């Protein structure tokens, strides 16, 4: 693999587009011989894209979402940005694990389970999820 590889996407905020990006990511991971990282990376991408579409863009198909995936020999780094106003990510990240019988509220916990580093910009309309791939 060359030192750093980057792939970018721009899409309108609808869930079908998120499916296409996830398929693209999966194919690219296979191409880069990183198949064992497909499941965690696809899950992180789905959550981040879902959040950007559903919460960040309020499902408004006129709004755009920007995605970038960076791969090098040590990390996979996913950056997702939407055009929404952001959210109080500090408060949400500090919350405890959601009650088992609750039907929602697991998205950010999922970031913490599958990414080694979770970063937001100040207003919370961009997330950067970094996963180490060094054995």
């Amino acid at each position, binding site marked *: 693999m060359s030192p750093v590889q980057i792939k970018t996407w721009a899409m309108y905020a609808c*869930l079908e587009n998120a499916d296409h990006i996830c398929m693209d990511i999966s194919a690219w991971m296979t191409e880069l011989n990183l198949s064992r990282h497909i*499941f965690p990376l*696809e*899950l992180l991408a789905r959550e981040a894209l879902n959040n950007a579409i559903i919460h960040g863009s309020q499902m408004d198909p006129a709004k755009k979402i920007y995605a970038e995936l960076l791969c090098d020999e040590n990390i996979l780094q996913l950056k997702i940005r939407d055009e929404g106003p952001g959210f109080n990510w500090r408060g949400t990240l500090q919350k405890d*694990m959601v009650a*088992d019988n609750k*039907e929602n509220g*697991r998205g950010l916990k*999922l970031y913490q389970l599958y990414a080694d580093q979770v970063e937001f910009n100040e207003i919370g309309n961009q997330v950067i999820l970094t996963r180490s791939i060094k054995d």
Partner: protein
Amino acid sequence: MQPEQQDPIIRFYKPEGDITASSAPLIRVDLKNLIAEGVRDLVIDMTNTRVIDSTGIGLLVATHNSLVRLNGKLAIKNVSQDLFELLKAFRLDKHFSVSGDPRLG
């Protein structure tokens, strides 16, 4: 005369693919219809399911909650190792049966 004790209706349901924010609304309708038809023991076969996102997990929890309220139960079978670990991380295996694909050993 005592009414006969009837066995709860058991049904298997196999999604065609992943259970995610884009597919969950249709799967939710299917599962609600099954429960409305009287199904109380529901087995979801994950043979064709590779990914379940947080919306999909929420759908499984909602289905479990609905069945429990009706004295029924949910079971998930043929999950991949990755999905098993995901569901276990959210402790769902403590609330309903989650079993792996026997082909994985």
